[in-house]
């Protein structure tokens, strides 16, 4: 399906999904094959890096082949290869990175190393032209941060969690109330059934900066759950609803603060927790009521979790700017954007 647009193949392997996406131009996703290892890591109650990296080796060719088949392209149609080089689990990153560099070397086409978090933001660029300056709220398993995008290629952290990431808090709370890893979706569903009956803190909600904190909230849930279990009165759905409400109150308040402090044309929500129904709902309300001139973009559910499509999407931006990476690029498990606060 080759037209005159550049075609970029993107590879993602930073955690427990092996995934390959193919994008035409900067917006048209032709394929996005995602293999999930969740069932494997559920055996251990969380991702085991050595197990994860072995699965990546097993499935990398499958994902590449399936994606090309879905997109109806052959190797000779591909103009560039993008792969995540960080942040993430080093042993996992190496697999996708090596695959990407090898493809680029063999096909004699440019290689683009992609920051996984830039990928999460650019999931929003699928079928959509982002307006700049933009603000991104990244909410995922390992990150919770406000990122300012002056333009397509500049990322500046305005605020970040000082301890746990939101997704991490969901997973830890999930364990406390009896949900399998990863618990985000299950808590979200339970919260829709339950009511806010438990009192929980909203950490840092009144501070003027854009930093966040979730470990205190998790500890409060732990104590409350222990207490309720002792009395045999724990209502899981209500606990989920109370926890989710506390998290969302903080995220909404901080987002409101951010949008009041800086002028942006668009707000993007990215990362696995962007799949959260309450978050999607409440962000839509916030924008509608308080910032009607700001556009809200939250990627479709499938593009919120880790996927190669979002890596291809940012690879396409790098390609347009001719921002190629050398083939001696190594993975960087703690890769991060520049923090404006230093």
């Amino acid at each position, binding site marked *: 399906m080759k037209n005159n647009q550049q075609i970029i193949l993107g590879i993602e392997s930073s955690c427990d999904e092996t995934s390959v996406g193919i994008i035409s131009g900067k917006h048209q996703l032709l394929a996005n094959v995602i293999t999930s290892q969740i*069932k494997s890591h559920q055996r251990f109650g969380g991702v085991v890096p*050595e197990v994860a990296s072995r699965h990546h080796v097993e499935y990398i060719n499958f994902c590449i082949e399936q994606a090309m088949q879905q997109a109806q392209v052959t190797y000779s149609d591909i103009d560039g290869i993008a792969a995540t080089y960080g942040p993430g689990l080093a042993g996992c*990153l190496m697999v996708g990175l*090596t695959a990407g*560099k090898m493809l680029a070397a063999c096909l004699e086409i440019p290689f683009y190393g992609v920051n996984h978090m830039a990928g999460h933001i650019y999931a929003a660029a699928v079928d959509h032209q982002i307006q700049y300056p933009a603000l991104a709220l990244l909410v995922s398993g390992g990150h919770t941060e406000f990122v300012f995008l002056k333009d397509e290629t500049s990322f500046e952290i305005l605020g970040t969690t000082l301890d746990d990431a939101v997704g991490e808090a969901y997973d830890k709370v999930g364990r406390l109330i009896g949900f399998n890893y990863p618990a985000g979706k299950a808590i979200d569903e339970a919260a829709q059934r339950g009511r806010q009956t438990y009192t929980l803190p909203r950490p840092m909600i009144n501070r003027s900066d854009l930093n966040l904190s979730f470990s205190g909230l998790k500890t409060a849930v732990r104590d409350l759950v222990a207490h309720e279990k002792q009395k045999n009165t724990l209502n899981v759905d209500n606990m989920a609803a109370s926890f989710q409400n506390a998290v969302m109150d903080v995220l909404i308040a901080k987002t409101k603060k951010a949008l009041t402090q800086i002028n942006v044309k668009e707000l993007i929500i990215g990362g696995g927790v962007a799949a959260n129904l309450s978050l999607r709902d409440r962000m839509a309300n916030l924008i509608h009521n308080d910032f009607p001139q700001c556009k809200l973009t939250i990627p479709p559910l499938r593009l919120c979790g880790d996927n190669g499509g979002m890596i291809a999407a940012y690879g396409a931006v790098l390609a347009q700017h001719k921002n190629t990476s050398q083939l001696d690029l190594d993975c960087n498990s703690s890769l991060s954007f520049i923090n404006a606060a230093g």
Partner: protein
Amino acid sequence: MLSLGIDCSEFGVSVALANDKQLIMEQSTTENKRASQFLVPQIKALFKNTPYKLAQVESIAVAQGPGSFTGLKIGVTAGKVLANVNHAKLFGISSLVNLAFPLLTTGNPVLTLISARHQNFYAGIYQKKSGKIVTLLPDSYLNYSVLREKIKHFNGLLIMGAGLEDVKTDLKEFGIIIPVSSGNLFPRGYSAILLSKGEKSISPDQFVPNYIRDPQAVLAWEKNNPEHSVINYVEEI
């Protein structure tokens, strides 16, 4: 037949390009830590100043294990991706045989060892007999106490490996110890190519490292779940 050989299993990164059995170019470093960084550029560099291109490689031999889990994954991933693009034949070579290769011409039995800490070793014994390599101890993961029982019957044993400091004094009783990287004794990409001749090729999709050892978490889980049924742990979503 243009062949590429890769060994980054433990002792460095060695890659070679050969036409049939004729070596064209080989490059080896003893820096194994950075295989994720340098393997691909090192492969690419083989083609500089040659009339060949990477896309012309028809056969790929990769040291498949045992060895460093990380090194194995990088070598295997590079091999299986390239084999898929080129429709090349893909061969997995024992990294212990590849390590033994330069000593096999002596005709002596050769024990190769890769240390896996706490006196545990990946070990294999091979000997060349009338032009054929025979396996006397198949690639295994053994504690030294078990290993020493298995090797005591051999005469004229040549022992090559690294990380042997703890057991050196005892090990000396059983043969001559030759450290890896002394002279030209190290596992080479070129010998991986030679060892692949006449072997059975494997489908790139199925190609995974021969780790020999399961991750600790899996061993523990299997111990606690002896009756688990085998399911597909990875699925397309």
